[in-house]
C-alpha cells in the first residue's frame, strides 16, 4: 500500500472525525453534566441538515445563513426537549432518560419525514475540484468544514475553561451535590448545556449535509461510531471525545485500505477494544472507583 493512499485516507478520516467531533462533544457534555447518553444526538444532527435545506429553499441560497439557522433551530429544539422531557425525568435513572431520548429521536425524525418525505435532499453548493498535490487530494469544501468545526470547538473550550459558566459546568460535572452546596444554580448551566449541545449537533448535521446527502437516517446511523468515539476518548472528557472520534474515523478509513471496506467498521472496533483493554477508562477518562 503506497503512502499516498494512506495519506489520503488519513485526511479523509480527519475531515469526517472533525465533523463528528461536534456531536460527539455534545454527547460527552450531556453525559458529564445531565448524566445520560443522549440517543437523540443523531436526530438533532438530522434536524440541522434539514433546516439547512429548508433555509436554502425558502430564504435563498446563502450557506452561512443556512448553517447559522440550523444551529439556532437545533438549539431551540434541544432546549424545548430539555424543558419538556429531560427536566421532568431529571430524578429518574439514566436508563429511563436514555429511553426517553430514543423517543425524542423518533419524534424528531418522524416530524421531519412528515414534512420532508423520505427522499434525499442535497445542499445546493457548486461542485469544486480537489487540489491535487502529487496525488494527495485536498478539497476546498473539506477545509471549510474542518475550519468551521475547529472554530466551534475552540469557542466551547474557551467557554468551558476560561469563563465562570464553564467553571460551573465543570463543577456540576465533578459533583452535582457539591456544586449545589456551594450555591451553583444548576438550571442556568443546564440551559447553557442544552443550547450548546443542540447548536453543535445542528452544525455537525449541516456540515455533514454539505459533504454527503441529507436523508432521514443521516444522524441515527452515526450514533454507533459517535458513541464508540466518545468511549474511546474517555466518557465525560471533552478533549477525549474530540480526539477519540478523530482517531476512530482515521482508523476506519485506513483500515478500509487493508481489509476491504466491508470490514473497516470491524477493524475500527478492534482498535477500540485494544485501547479499552489497556486503558479501561479510555484515552482521557479518569478511572472511576465504585463505592
Amino acid at each position, binding site marked *: 500500500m503506497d503512502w499516498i493512499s494512506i495519506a489520503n*485516507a488519513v485526511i479523509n478520516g480527519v475531515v469526517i472525525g472533525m465533523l463528528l467531533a461536534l456531536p460527539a462533544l455534545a454527547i460527552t457534555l450531556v453525559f458529564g453534566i445531565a448524566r445520560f447518553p443522549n440517543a437523540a444526538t443523531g436526530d438533532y444532527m438530522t434536524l440541522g441538515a434539514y433546516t439547512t435545506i429548508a433555509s436554502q429553499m425558502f430564504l435563498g441560497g446563502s450557506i452561512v445563513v443556512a448553517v447559522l439557522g440550523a444551529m439556532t433551530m437545533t438549539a431551540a429544539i434541544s432546549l424545548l426537549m430539555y424543558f419538556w422531557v429531560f427536566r421532568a425525568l431529571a430524578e429518574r435513572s439514566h436508563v429511563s432518560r436514555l429511553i426517553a431520548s430514543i423517543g425524542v429521536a423518533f419524534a424528531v425524525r418522524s416530524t421531519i419525514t412528515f414534512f420532508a418525505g423520505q*427522499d*434525499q435532499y442535497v445542499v445546493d453548493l457548486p461542485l469544486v*475540484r480537489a487540489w*491535487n498535490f502529487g496525488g494527495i*487530494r485536498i*478539497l476546498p469544501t473539506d477545509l471549510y468544514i474542518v475550519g468551521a468545526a475547529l472554530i466551534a470547538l475552540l469557542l466551547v473550550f474557551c467557554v468551558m475553561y476560561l469563563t465562570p459558566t464553564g467553571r460551573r459546568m465543570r463543577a456540576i460535572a465533578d459533583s452535582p451535590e457539591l456544586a449545589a452546596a456551594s450555591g451553583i444554580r444548576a438550571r442556568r448551566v443546564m440551559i447553557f448545556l442544552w443550547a450548546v449541545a443542540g447548536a453543535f449537533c445542528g452544525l455537525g448535521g449541516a456540515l455533514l449535509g454539505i459533504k454527503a446527502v441529507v436523508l432521514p437516517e443521516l444522524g441515527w446511523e452515526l450514533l454507533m461510531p459517535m458513541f464508540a468515539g466518545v468511549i474511546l476518548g474517555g466518557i465525560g472528557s471533552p478533549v477525549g471525545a474530540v480526539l477519540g472520534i478523530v482517531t476512530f474515523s482515521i482508523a476506519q478509513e485506513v483500515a478500509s485500505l487493508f481489509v476491504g*471496506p466491508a470490514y473497516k467498521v470491524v477493524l475500527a472496533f478492534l482498535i477500540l477494544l485494544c485501547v479499552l483493554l489497556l486503558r479501561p477508562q479510555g484515552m482521557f477518562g479518569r478511572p472511576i472507583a465504585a463505592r
Partner: protein
Amino acid sequence: MMKQPYNLSRRAFLVSGTAAAGLGALPGQSFAQGERVFRLGALNSITGIGGPYGPYMLEAIKLAVAEVNAAGGAAGRKFQLFAEDDQTKPEAAVLAVKKLVEINKVEAVVGIWASSVGLATMPITNDANLITMNTCGAPEMLTENKKGLAWMFQASNAIFGNAFAEVARRRGFKRPAVMAFNNSTFVGQANYFKSAWEANGGKVSAFVIYEPNQSSYRTELARVLASKPDVISLSAYRPDATIILKEWYQSGQDCKFIMPGWTANEDLVKALGKEATEGLISISNVAAEQHPAFKRFAAEFKTITKREPDIFAAQCYDMVITLALALEAAGAQADVAAINGQIRTVTGTGGTKANSFVEGRDILRKGQKVDYDGASSRLEFGKHGETVPDFGVFDIQDGRLVLKETIPGQLPA
C-alpha cells in the same frame, strides 16, 4: 410506595384517543356486510435506504386498487389494502409480513422492493401459501421460489450484470472496474458483471464492495480509481451514488460510469447538477413508455404525486392489475392456488392484448384468453417467475436521459 406517575383520566384519554385514531386509520370501512373482499398486503420500503422509491410504490398500488375497485372489483371481489413499512430491513420485514399474514389474513403480498426483504419473507409467505410479487433482483430469488408463488417484476441481477458487461463491450471499454453496494441485489449484479466480462477473456481492474450508510466513500473510490479504469460499473442507490459521484467529480480523474436506471436518472441530475452527471451510462429495463398502459398510469400517477413514476412504481401498479385479472379469470370462489395458477395465463402470449384492468376483464368475460401488457414491461414470466425484459441503454446528456439503443435481455449461460 411509589407515587402513581400517571394521571389516570389522562391515561384513559390517551388510550381511547389512540384507539379512536387507529380505528380511523383502518382502511376499507366502506365495504358492505357480506361482500367477500380480496385482502391484499402491501409491504413497501417506506423508510430506510428504499425511502426514495417505497412511498411512490405504495401510491402506485393504491392507484391500481382504486382502479380495480372502481370497476366493481375482480370477479366481484373488491380489494382491501393493508399496508406495512419494512424499513428496508429484513428483521422489520419479517415482523411486518407476519402481521399481514396472521392478523390481516392477506391473500397476497405485493410491492416488496429489497432482495434482502424478499429473501427473508419468502419462507413465511410460502409456508402460508400466499402469492407474493416483488421487484427483487437477487438471483437467489429464482432458486428460492420453490412453490412458484413468487413473481419477480424486476429483471434478475444476473440479467442486469450481463447487460452491463454487454454494454461495456459494445462501447469498446478495456479496463472496467466494479463498485457495488453491499447487499444481495448489488453484489449479485457485480458478480455477474465480473463473470460475464471475464468469460470473454477480459479482466476487471478493481472489484470493491462498499458498506452502505456512510457519509463518505472517498477511500473506497480511491481504491477503484487507483487501478485507472476506463469505466466503472457502479451498482448503487441514489443516496450513495450521489456521494460517490460527487467525490469522483471532485477527484478530477476521468472515467465513465455504467449504472442501473433506477439510480442514474433525472433525480440524480437534480442532486448533482448537469456537469457531474454528463455522459453517465444508465441501463434499465425499459418501462413500456410508448405503451398505452404506461401512459395512462403515468398520467394518473402524476396528478396524485406531481412526478413521473419510476420503474418500480410502474411494476407495483402492474402487480395489482395482474393479480386482479388472475382473480377475475379464476372466479370469485377460487382459492389462492387457483388464482396463482392464472397469473401466467393472463400475462402470457397468445391472448388478446389488454392494457388495463377493465379491458382485460371484458375480454375474459367474453370467454377469451387475455394477455395483459403492463406499464412496466410486456410481463412474460419465465419458468421461475422471472421477467426477462429488454434493456434500454441511455446516456445522460445535458441533464436528460437519451436512449441510445435497446438490447435484448438474456439469462446468463
